[in-house]
């Protein structure tokens, strides 16, 4: 049994790690999406967390766990600072502002040679991130999201997602809740950035750009924002898809685009809404929930 697992990890270990890492990231983005914040700042937060944690391990010789938490905390602090003005913006303006943030971080990473290594990036980062750590963190994230959805705070977030003006009239501090979710999202993204850096031996300014932010946003949306496992399904699906489509060589990108388009068109509630096709009677008897359209 163990031998089989070892063998599997030897050939697919990288892919497994990537799936776990992206799942974690998907829940980080979900925190923002849960209150209708379509953030493109994820790449920027990841970069902040990655460079900060690498600085901690390589320059300061700090333990790995401390470095990752420090990366997360710095990203959270940045989220707090940019959150206050940015969260006053709505919809597409919010997206543009967070995108601008990611770009600013990229440009800083490109030019601050002393810390980031400039355009060349940082090589030879020790590989500290282990699969079991990622599994553990994913489990923690799952439990956290599970508990959050059942709490008063979680219900108020679901109400904000549907109708923020009404929620405000009900006494929900919409701005405060959005800000705390945005900061939490920044923390997770920054932590994932640190984990990614210590998995790949290398960080460079182009690792955490717009593309990374869009990918991260796609995970929970494709999987389904309303379902607990939605972000995980979306992350694994999007990570494995390029591998599964390897047979098609140049067609891969096109096929991937078509698949994503199909999910968006036919499953607007995300892939997890497939599981909700059940007889009406059963659905009516289901006890109190806040999911699904």
């Amino acid at each position, binding site marked *: 049994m163990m031998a089989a697992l070892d063998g599997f990890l030897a050939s697919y270990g990288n892919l497994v790690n990537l799936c776990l890492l992206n799942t974690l990231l998907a829940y980080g983005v979900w925190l923002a999406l849960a209150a209708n914040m379509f953030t493109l700042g994820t790449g920027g937060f990841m970069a902040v967390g990655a460079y900060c944690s690498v600085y901690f391990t390589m320059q300061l010789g700090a333990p790995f766990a401390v470095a990752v938490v420090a990366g997360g905390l710095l990203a959270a602090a940045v989220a707090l600072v940019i959150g206050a003005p940015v969260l006053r913006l709505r919809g597409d303006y919010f997206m543009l502002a967070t995108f601008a943030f990611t770009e600013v971080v990229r440009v800083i990473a490109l030019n601050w040679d002393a810390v980031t290594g400039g355009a060349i990036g940082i090589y030879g980062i020790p590989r500290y991130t282990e699969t079991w750590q990622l599994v553990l963190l994913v489990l923690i994230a799952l439990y956290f999201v599970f508990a959050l959805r059942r709490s008063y705070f979680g219900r*108020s977030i*679901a*109400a904000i997602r549907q109708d923020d*003006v009404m929620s*405000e009239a009900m006494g929900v501090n919409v701005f405060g809740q959005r800000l705390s979710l945005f900061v939490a999202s920044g923390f997770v993204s920054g932590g994932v950035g640190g984990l990614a850096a210590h998995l790949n031996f290398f960080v460079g300014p182009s690792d955490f750009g717009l593309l990374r932010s869009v990918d991260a946003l796609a995970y929970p949306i494709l999987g389904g924002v309303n379902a607990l496992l939605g972000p995980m399904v979306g992350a694994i699906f999007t990570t494995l898809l390029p591998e599964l489509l390897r047979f098609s060589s140049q067609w891969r990108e096109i096929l991937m685009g078509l698949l994503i388009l199909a999910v968006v068109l036919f499953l607007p509630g995300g892939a997890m809404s497939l599981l909700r096709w059940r007889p009406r009677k059963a659905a009516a008897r289901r006890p109190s929930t806040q999911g699904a359209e």
Partner: protein
Amino acid sequence: MLELVKVTSGYGSVAAVEDIDITVPAGACVCLIGANGAGKTTTLLTICGLVRAFSGTVRIEGRDMTARPADRIVRAGVSLVPEGRRVVASMSVEDNLKVGAYVRGGDPAIADDMELIYTRFPRLKERRFQYAGSLSGGEQQMLAMGRALMARPKLLLLDEPSMGLAPHVVNDIFATIADINAKGTTVLLVEQNARKALSVASYGYVMEHGRILFADTAEALARDPRVIAAYLGMRAAETASA
């Protein structure tokens, strides 16, 4: 309970209500009637802190609450039943009620209050696990009212509770409003259906073009020729559209 002094308010740089004075004594049921676009909803939203007053003062129980954040106003005991009900369609009836009790945090009495609401609206109890979006208009209005009551308000603001409802449902809703008021909750009611509003209220304000035209007891307003001509005279049209 509630006092508006020379309040001017609106959106951007456009004033939708100008210089209005409204007093709602504790325990009263006061209505605000007027045509579409008279500024009735803006007045309510200004009280709730959802629209900022340009000038003037909003006092709740004697305390200046002008332009305070909305959650402070709810905590001060003012709940809004918004126009068009605005229940959270993808949440169950019960979860909608729980959102209404949000400001009370982990108050153990929430469960008891939920039972009280279910006693008042048995239809909601039957449908407690159903999505709020699947309720009829009247049931959604009950849910919106129940949700507002879950905050245990001293003052309940109702914005067009009769909108889009069948006449017999409107009668139920107004009977409920009268009962809520009789049990001690102060009510400020905004309505286009002036006849209904004046039947439950003790005092009324008439609004037009963002200003209070005049105010009087509900009986006097119901007999006032200006009110009859402008708001009650259209009885035929009103019943036809209801």
